[in-house]
């Protein structure tokens, strides 16, 4: 009982981090909220570690901690410093509209229609629908944001929320594969990091809409 409440708290924090990712103008805040989000994932993993007492999960936790909570934010902050891009590029929709759509997406995620998804583990329905809504939110984030960093963070948080969903739906993989996935993400982050700096070099900003020379 206690546990469920705790988990719900975690999921809500995750959800909130996504909202803040949506609303924030500052890149720094965005990275911070991503860090929080990742730590939420770590905590959730910890929780399942305490449930299953499976020592190997600990390795996964460690990897996740290092890659997502520590390294990724560091990278991004360095990037922000180096390129002096304090403010992230603008969005397509203004704040009120965003909030409306966020609400709508959350509503959809919680709707009865999606019970086949959210009802995989009936006990965790609330958590699952929260995870689902954060999936939708992160997709929306990527669509709505023009900043390169925001898109990267969007993708990463999409990955986080899918992970959360997987955990609560009881679909974890064998440890090896989980580590493989984390490693993949790690490489991905590095490449994304390099790409962002290259993009900045070529286009003088992180605004992805400046990249529209390849048409038809």
């Amino acid at each position, binding site marked *: 009982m206690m546990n469920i409440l705790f988990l719900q708290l975690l999921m809500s924090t995750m959800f909130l981090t996504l909202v803040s990712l949506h609303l924030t103008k500052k890149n720094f805040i965005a990275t911070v909220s991503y860090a929080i989000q990742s730590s939420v994932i770590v905590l959730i993993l910890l929780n399942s570690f305490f449930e299953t007492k499976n020592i190997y999960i600990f390795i996964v936790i460690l990897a996740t901690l290092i890659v997502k909570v520590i390294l990724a934010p560091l990278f991004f902050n360095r990037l922000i410093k180096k390129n002096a891009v304090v403010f992230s590029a603008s969005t*397509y929709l203004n704040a009120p509209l965003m909030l409306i759509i966020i609400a709508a997406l959350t509503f959809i995620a919680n709707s009865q229609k999606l019970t086949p998804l959210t009802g995989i583990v009936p006990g965790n329905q609330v958590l699952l629908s929260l995870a689902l809504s954060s999936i939708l939110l992160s997709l929306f984030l990527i*669509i*709505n944001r*023009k900043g390169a960093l925001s898109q990267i963070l969007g993708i990463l948080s999409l990955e986080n929320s899918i992970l959360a969903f997987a955990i609560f739906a009881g679909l974890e993989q064998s440890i090896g594969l989980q580590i493989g996935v984390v490693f993949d993400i790690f490489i991905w982050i590095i490449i994304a990091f390099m790409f962002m700096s290259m993009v900045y070099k070529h286009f003088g900003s992180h605004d*992805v*809409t400046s990249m529209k020379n390849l*048409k*038809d």
Partner: protein
Amino acid sequence: MTEIITSAISFFSLIILFAIGAIGSLLFRKSDKLANLFGSFFAIAGSLYGLIFSISAIISGSVLSFSFKLPAFPLLALSFHIDLLSEFFIFVISLIALFCSIYGIGYAKHFYQKYSLGALGFFYNFLLISLFLVVTASNGIFFLIAWEIMSLSSYFLVVYDKNDENNVKAGSLYFIMTYAGTAFIITAFLFLYKYTGSFDFAAIKANVGLIPLAIKNTIFILALIGFGTKAGIIPLHIWLPAAHPAAPSHVSALMSGVMIKAGIYMMIRIFLDILQPAPVWWGLVIVIIGAVSALLGVLYALTEQDIKKLLAYSSIENIGIILLGLGSALTFYSLNMPALALLSLMAALFHTLNHAIFKSLLFLSAGSVINEVHTRNMEEFGGVIKYMPQTALFFLIGSMAISALPPFNGFFSEWLTFQSLFMGIFQLQSFVQWIFIIAAGSLAFTGGLALACFVKAFGATFLARPRSLEVTHAKESPLSMQVGMGVMATLCLLFGVFSGYTATLLAKIGKGFTIFQNTVSPIAVASNQGINITNGFASASGPVIFILLVVVLSLVAFAIRYVVNKNQKIKIGATWDCGTDLTPRMEITATGFAQSIVTIFKRILKPSIQHEIEYHDVESRYMMKSRSVTLGVGDIYHAYLYKPLHKVINVLSTRAKNIQSGNINAYISYIFIALVVALLLVL
């Protein structure tokens, strides 16, 4: 003996011969001469063999049918069915191919050091192979393959002279049109497959009853468009006058003489053989199309100054005439008058044969003139007859044959066509009768206009004084070319004089059809070769007309020259010039000759005229430096059919390009939308 000749093996050895020619000439491409000789030799050998094969097969009346299954590919089987119809077309193909190849030896010489002769031989032989396969294949997919190879090889022959921008353009137009046509054919076959469950012609024919009428009609329309594109019926003809002139002349001859007949062959095969019984309106539609194509074709031919374009348009006209025969055959059969149907079919087949002969003869002789004068524009010819007398004679014979002047072959096939139309008028009722009346009328006018057209062609090219310096350097063409043309010219006469015998053979071929198996032949041939149609409705005799002409002519000539008075002198003087000195510019030109007819038919032809005047001094527009007048004929098909079509596609494509806007957020939203839509569908 005939068993050996008319066997699967010999058919294959026939194909092999061409294949050797194709590969060989490609291997020898380093040496132009060798490649040319090698390719031509095997082409000649192959077509000669094909001639023997087809003749012996027709005479022995044997029907071949054999098939190879390919394990790897389902539905596809290399199955051949060589019945009398196929044999007839094999005969036509190999006949024309033979003389075109002979002609080609000499003609291809002027490509030496210019283009690869290897490629020429390769594609030429492959064109021949594909033609043979097209008229013998009896599996839909196999047929389509042969058909496409035919289009492909002919495309490469059209763009063979690739340094000329226009040829490449013409080639593109041709291939796109034929590709679209093939799409229609494929659809037709798919319909057949859907309802009969097979691509094999025999099987389709057996289960044709399973096809509902509506589908049958759809198939008819699809096939008509598909094969009509290849046959060049109006308004699907636009590629033909562009593509045929572009190719080397002996290839143009082959294309105009034979390749477009492949379309006719398939129409006969599908409409008259496979899809029977058919509703009446099929035949009527084809008759109308034939009438229109014939009349418009010859009108456009009249307006042309490019001699090969003129010939190409006249091919459209003759296709129209053939379709008149075919259409009336269908109509008669649907109204169950099999005898008349057989008559019309014979007319169609006969004209197919004749047109093949004289059209290739004309293309060949035009080719040898072009070869000497280095232009296709008739305005720059004139007086060629003095420099190339033989060629002129051959062209004259060709012109007489194509304008249906007795005793040449063209007359008799047109005569048969006329007779079948007359019988239609005679025996049918109400609006069907009226369609036949209109058809007969258009055929009559077509005859007259064709006469005018070829008077123009011959006169402007060969008669009067040279209108360009090039002409005065012209020399008679080499032997091989003369042989090619000469034999064809003789054939024009022979097939005319012995039209009776030919007619009996055609009747035999017609009886090869399932639907005509027990039909009494509508024609009787007297001992004097006189053809007699449906117990004395009409009759004519080639030999008698010929002999009468010869005898009377010689009598008259003899009487006038030697009887009336012998001691009469002939002075050579100048043409009366009204006191001025006569320059070539005073002669009538090709344009001038046709001008009155163009003016009369201006509603259809939409002639255009543009003046361009250049002044010495632009301010004071008194001193005129040069004035050029451009006469043209409005291309209504392009303006009202093809341009709009192209426009629509263009608009659509420009719209579609907006999808690829370059904005990544938009791209991602596509994915999101796709996802949502798909989810909404299942939830």
